């Protein structure tokens, strides 16, 4: 073990366990405080950044304002290991406690090792910090049984079973508790919280039955989708309603999502566990750092915030080329690695991509009512913005045409989200059974799994052979076809993939021939 687990006290040296974040992972940090005679000074070493240096003033004031003595001595604080960059104000509290222990103002009565994180304000109040759930997971893995965290974070840390979490409101409380003067009770786990603002229902979308069916398949099997259609045909409306039919998060998935939001500081006040799939729709002006995560100060980007949920990119070709290309690696691996001088950081990014675009720059190519005014060159340029490798990774391609006047005026509501969701939930259960794993979907199958789970009867096989010949399908397209067919078969509650499943699936693979054929075949 790289550090001594016990908050030890030897003479004028104190050691307190704390932690920092590296991406969304918690990393243990030993806070060592040495107090010696000499000219009074207060130095922090161990690769602290500016925000940690500033904590000296907060700590000094907080200790004084809590009616405790700030020692007039030479104080040296070391944050070990010294090769990880330490950021943020979460070390305020452990350093303050270390100083009090080293100056013998505090002698912890605790037998068990404990971990402390928290930001101090000048009056000694403890303010919440980011990423507490990741730190709690780290504490559990390192078998640290007790955690002292800011009161507002405590229910979030308590989500992790096996550790006792105490929520602390101010410095005085913690000092008195450690001295055995007062008792506190451990915090209770957090309630669930909502992150998606939009709520609608699929029955509000008029017509577009085939698009709805395609989105149902996509949601059931976690397949990437691209929708092509003229302005106003309902692409955005359809996408926004996707969260209402997505299957619920499993416990492991919910924890992953909560970790990411906690690290990014996006959990609402009081914290909690996120139990709905995220839906992110960044604007097309987004920067590369905003999409994949900051580089100098790695924070999760949109693709990580969409982890286990939907990343909706409206006006797909309008996104910057480098932003779109950056999606390739995460779409393949389900995670993103950001490399820096001090090692690399992995962010989970297993999202379902839902893209929408017009069929040409003016939007009316092939429209029944309006004429397209684009030149052939403009159209080709527009489509060439979506590169072959990106398109290859999208399982389902659909057209969302202009609504016919009759459908528009008729007032028959479509099928409600709750009916669709029931079917999807059933398919989700099939998949959990199939993969014996709370994370997997048909859309995420590896080639080996495709072979195992997409077995075909001889008549279906011959049909497929015919299709491959006719459409000149590549090996990758063939795999995609089988994955989508598997989900369709699941929706039809069929154990085997039947002819009709294949025939439906092939419909979702033909758009690229219509629009991209010239360039990519």
């Amino acid at each position, binding site marked *: 073990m790289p550090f001594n687990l016990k908050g030890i006290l030897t003479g004028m040296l104190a050691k307190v366990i704390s932690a920092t974040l590296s991406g969304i992972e918690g990393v243990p940090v030993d806070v060592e405080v040495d107090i010696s005679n000499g000219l*009074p*000074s*207060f130095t922090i070493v161990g690769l602290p950044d500016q925000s940690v240096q500033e904590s000296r003033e907060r700590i000094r004031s907080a200790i004084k304002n809590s009616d405790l003595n700030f020692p007039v001595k030479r104080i040296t604080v070391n944050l070990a290991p010294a090769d990880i960059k330490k950021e943020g104000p979460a070390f305020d509290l452990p350093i303050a406690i270390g100083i009090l222990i080293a100056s013998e103002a505090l002698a912890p009565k605790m037998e068990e090792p404990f971990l402390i994180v928290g930001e101090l304000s000048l009056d000694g109040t403890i303010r919440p910090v980011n990423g507490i759930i990741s730190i709690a997971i780290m504490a559990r893995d390192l078998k640290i049984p007790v955690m002292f965290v800011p009161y507002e974070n405590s229910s979030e840390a308590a989500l992790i079973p096996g550790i006792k979490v105490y929520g602390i409101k101010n410095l005085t409380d913690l000092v008195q508790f450690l001295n055995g003067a007062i008792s506190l009770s451990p915090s209770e786990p957090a309630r669930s919280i909502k992150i998606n603002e939009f709520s609608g229902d699929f029955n509000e979308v008029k017509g577009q039955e085939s698009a709805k069916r395609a989105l149902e398949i996509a949601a059931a099997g976690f397949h990437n989708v691209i929708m092509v259609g003229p302005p106003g045909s309902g692409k955005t409306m359809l996408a926004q309603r996707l969260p209402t039919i997505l299957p619920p998060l499993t416990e492991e998935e919910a924890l992953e999502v909560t970790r990411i939001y906690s690290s990014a500081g996006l959990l609402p006040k009081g914290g909690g566990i996120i139990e709905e799939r995220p839906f992110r729709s960044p604007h097309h002006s987004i920067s590369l750092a905003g999409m994949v995560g900051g580089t100098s100060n790695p924070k999760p980007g949109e693709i990580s915030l969409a982890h286990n949920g939907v990343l909706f990119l409206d006006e797909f070709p309008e996104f910057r080329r480098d932003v779109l290309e950056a999606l390739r690696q995460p779409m393949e691996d389900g995670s993103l690695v950001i490399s820096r001088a001090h090692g690399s950081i992995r962010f989970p990014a297993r999202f379902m991509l839902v893209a929408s675009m017009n069929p040409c720059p003016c939007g009316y190519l092939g429209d029944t009512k309006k004429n397209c005014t684009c030149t052939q060159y403009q159209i080709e340029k527009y489509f060439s913005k979506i590169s072959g490798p990106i398109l290859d990774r999208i399982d389902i391609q659909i057209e969302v045409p202009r609504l016919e006047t009759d459908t528009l005026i008729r007032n028959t509501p479509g099928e409600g989200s709750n009916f669709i969701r029931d079917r999807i939930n059933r398919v989700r259960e099939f998949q959990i059974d199939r993969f014996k794993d709370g994370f997997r979907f048909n859309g995420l199958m590896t080639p080996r799994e495709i072979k195992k789970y997409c077995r075909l009867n001889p008549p279906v096989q011959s049909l497929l052979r015919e299709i491959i010949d006719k459409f000149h399908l590549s090996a990758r397209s063939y795999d995609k076809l089988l994955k989508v067919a598997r989900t369709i078969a699941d929706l039809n509650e069929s154990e085997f993939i039947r002819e009709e499943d294949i025939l439906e699936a092939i419909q979702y693979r033909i758009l690229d021939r219509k629009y991209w054929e010239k360039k990519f075949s």
Partner: protein
Amino acid sequence: MKNKRALGNLGEKKALEYLRNLGYDILAVNFYSQRGEIDIIAEDKGTLSFVEVKTRTGKKFGDPEESITLKKRERIVRTALYYLHSRGWPRLSCRFDVLTVKIDPKTGDTEFNLTRDAFQLEGDTYRYVG
């Protein structure tokens, strides 16, 4: 100019009296080094205290505490290091105090304001461990 020196001497005399009454054990007065001067060096309950005395007659030039500039602090710290060196680095904790003496020129009334631990070393420029 002469007046100013006289005022300073008067203030320091009163300051010594005041510190003695507080129980400070005076070790040196007007300790000079090449790098500067410390008005009073005293021991206060086991802590070595370097006292800077500031005397003022009115509020015209602001509070006396304000006149301890960064440069002045540096001089005091360097002189303190020299003092510690000349005494063979005693194993004591140290402190910098500022004592302001306000003298009313008409009545001669004096008012003291002692700030213990008025400032500390910034960063790790001075590496002295007692």
